[in-house]
């Protein structure tokens, strides 16, 4: 086999979910950049424009799923990178819980932001 490097244990659950979220993120991250830098210039963004976009439920749902999958992909990536670097025992457990809490807080705050943009709170 050709030389291939990875921080992930191939075939494991963390590896699988990293791949599944990657497939979604490839499309939605490219879409996010296109929409907010090329279709709408970033310097022209206003709350009214954001609210108009987030007022569409399909867009709102896509952005919320973007938040959740990007958070998982990022936090899972960091965890696997650190495990791959050789952390173990209580260090590994502490890192796991810090990352889980950080991820949950980010999703909670991102959800509040999305609801404020949508006008619901």
């Amino acid at each position: 086999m050709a030389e291939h490097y990875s921080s992930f244990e191939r075939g494991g659950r963390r590896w699988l979910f990293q791949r599944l979220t990657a497939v979604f993120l490839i499309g939605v991250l490219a879409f996010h950049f296109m929409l907010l830098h090329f279709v709408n210039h970033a310097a022209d963004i206003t709350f009214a424009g954001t609210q108009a976009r987030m007022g569409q439920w399909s867009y709102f749902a896509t952005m919320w799923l973007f938040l959740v999958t990007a958070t998982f992909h990022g936090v899972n990536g960091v965890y696997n990178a650190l495990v791959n670097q050789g952390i173990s025992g209580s260090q590994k457990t502490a890192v796991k819980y810090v990352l889980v809490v950080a991820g949950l807080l980010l999703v909670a705050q991102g959800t509040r932001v999305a609801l404020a943009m949508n006008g619901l709170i």
Partner: protein
Amino acid sequence: MSQSYNRGTVEDFGRWREFSAGMWAWIFHKFTGWVLVGYLFTHIAVLSTSLGGAELYTNTLQGLEALLVVRFLEVGLLAVAVFHILNGIRLLMVDLGVGLEAQDKSFYASLVLTGAIVVASIPTFLGGPLA
């Protein structure tokens, strides 16, 4: 679950001249991943100004966009994101067993395509009025 991988000399960065394309792809993917996850937390923090009202949100975003350094940082973010996407597609292909014999060439293609997309995007990112 925990398993050590035989990554050869990749941790021994002093021997970087001997690194293969696959090692560089692993290092670049990891570096861009760290940048993107850091940016994700920063991005939500900035967008949290929406909780303080429409005026605060608009003024914060337009104030940041008025700074030249922010425009350059956005070009850097684009470069990081595009490489992570393109090399990510390459990794999915590798995991599916597609094009394994060309995985070094597809890494170089990711780099070249990232460069081309970033250069082509610079006028859009740097254009528009500044402070």
